[in-house]
């Protein structure tokens, strides 16, 4: 069976804008010499100090779930010989921020992971890259060669699949089994790779840890708000355009971040597992994890996808759901059966053959019924289409669409 291609292809080129902290002075290039000149040598940090640092700024994971990093770090430190994993698999095609870090700031990511590995007394540091993004793998290899043998690092290549980057799927890959999600009875930080506590985070999270260790809490707090210090990486995508990766301080207005062409248009916030937001919502929103979650549009892994005015969001959602259905590992019944049915229901909606009720029922049915959050994320996207863009959905149900692309709807 061939799997449908992503409606937003994995980018070959990423436009990386200089930013205030992680991406400060990226024009220097990714070399270790340039990194050390800007950030200095990596100091040794004891575990209690590292915990204090990450707790002090309330660092959250940047892979999408926004889980407090300090909680994971503490859990991983409670049992013997923890394992540290840097997840660079970035299975979401519309996201390019971890790739951007790997290309522009690999040593900041590595410094964060190495500092944590040393603080935890880990003997193993694993990096997971994806075959879909060859430049990332090359850049990481070069960075590791430059560093020499300061820590034993194992590099793994993830399967190109949306769910391959999920934490348990990554641990399966590291264990030599198929790179697919399995049921997690306990958190990875308690019981992960070969039963050891496993501290697994994505590249952006590690870069923030690196920045905190290298620059200290005071410098970190210079950006963002008191409640939410620091910055976040966003991937801004418009179809037909290379994505832009921008680093923005928490509290920045979204309307100041979105390109001019996006003004007035709805956007998909949080990527393929994200939610639609209308322009009035976007115009008043700020970059904030709790703030955007309260609006019903969680920031997720920082993807903002703005279809151009000619692209119908119902049609685009239909293509995304069809793609996501094909990305299922096919191991969990509700996902294996429910996602293709959901994709068909949304396709019917887009072509005017069906109403919203079947899609809504299926979205509610698959939720929470899988080893990973793939059905939940796909259901979230569909529910947000039905809720936020109900006027577009109603137009389709009546057989109409105001967008030019409807003429070539597949």
């Amino acid at each position, binding site marked *: 069976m061939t799997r449908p291609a992503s409606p937003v292809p994995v980018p070959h080129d990423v436009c990386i804008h200089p930013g205030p902290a992680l991406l400060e002075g990226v024009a220097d290039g990714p070399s270790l010499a340039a990194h050390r000149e800007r950030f200095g040598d990596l100091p040794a940090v004891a575990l209690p100090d590292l915990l204090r640092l990450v707790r002090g700024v309330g660092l959250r994971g940047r892979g999408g779930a926004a889980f407090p990093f300090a909680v994971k770090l503490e859990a991983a430190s409670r049992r013997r010989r923890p394992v540290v994993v840097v997840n660079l698999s970035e299975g979401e095609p519309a996201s390019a921020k971890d790739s951007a870090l790997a290309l522009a700031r690999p040593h900041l990511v590595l410094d964060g992971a190495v500092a944590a590995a040393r603080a935890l007394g880990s003997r193993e540091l694993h990096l997971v890259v994806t075959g879909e993004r060859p430049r990332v793998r090359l850049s990481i290899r070069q960075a590791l060669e430059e560093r020499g043998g300061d820590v034993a690092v194992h590099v793994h290549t993830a399967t190109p699949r949306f769910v391959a980057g999920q934490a348990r799927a990554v641990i399966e890959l590291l264990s030599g089994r198929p790179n697919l*999600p*399995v*049921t997690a*009875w306990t958190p990875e930080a308690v019981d992960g790779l070969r039963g050891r506590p496993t501290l697994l985070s994505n590249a952006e999270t590690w870069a923030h840890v690196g920045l905190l260790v290298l620059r200290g809490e005071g410098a970190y707090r210079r950006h963002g708000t008191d409640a939410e210090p620091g910055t976040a990486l966003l991937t801004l995508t418009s179809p037909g355009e290379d994505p832009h990766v921008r680093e923005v301080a928490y509290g920045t207005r979204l309307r100041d971040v979105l390109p001019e062409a996006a003004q007035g248009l709805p956007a998909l916030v949080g990527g393929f597992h994200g939610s639609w937001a209308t322009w009035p919502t976007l115009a008043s929103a700020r970059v904030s994890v709790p703030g955007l979650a309260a609006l019903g549009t969680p920031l997720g892994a920082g993807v903002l996808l703005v279809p151009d005015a000619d692209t119908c969001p119902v049609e685009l959602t239909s293509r995304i759901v069809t793609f996501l259905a094909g990305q299922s*590992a096919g*191991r*969990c*019944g*509700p*996902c294996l*059966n*429910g996602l293709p049915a959901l994709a068909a229901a949304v396709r019917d909606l887009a072509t005017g053959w069906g109403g919203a009720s079947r899609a809504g029922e299926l979205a509610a*049915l698959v939720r929470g*019924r*899988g*080893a990973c959050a793939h059905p939940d994320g796909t259901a979230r996207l569909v529910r947000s289409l039905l809720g936020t863009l109900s006027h577009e959905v109603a137009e389709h149900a009546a057989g109409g669409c105001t967008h030019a692309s409807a003429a070539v709807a597949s």
Partner: protein
Amino acid sequence: MSRLRVDWPSCQARGLCHELLPELVELDEWGYPIVGGEVTDDLVADARAAVRACPRLALRLVAR
């Protein structure tokens, strides 16, 4: 209090859980279980029976 949790990759829609515990387990249109909320005290024995009977060992009673 406890609840039932399904090991989804192991579940193959054999349906015994529904036969033994219809109070808490419904089946979806493909035969996979839809597990209800808390396992109340009067249902714990039946829930344990359903867990033991699953031919795929895909059902667990977990503490909450």
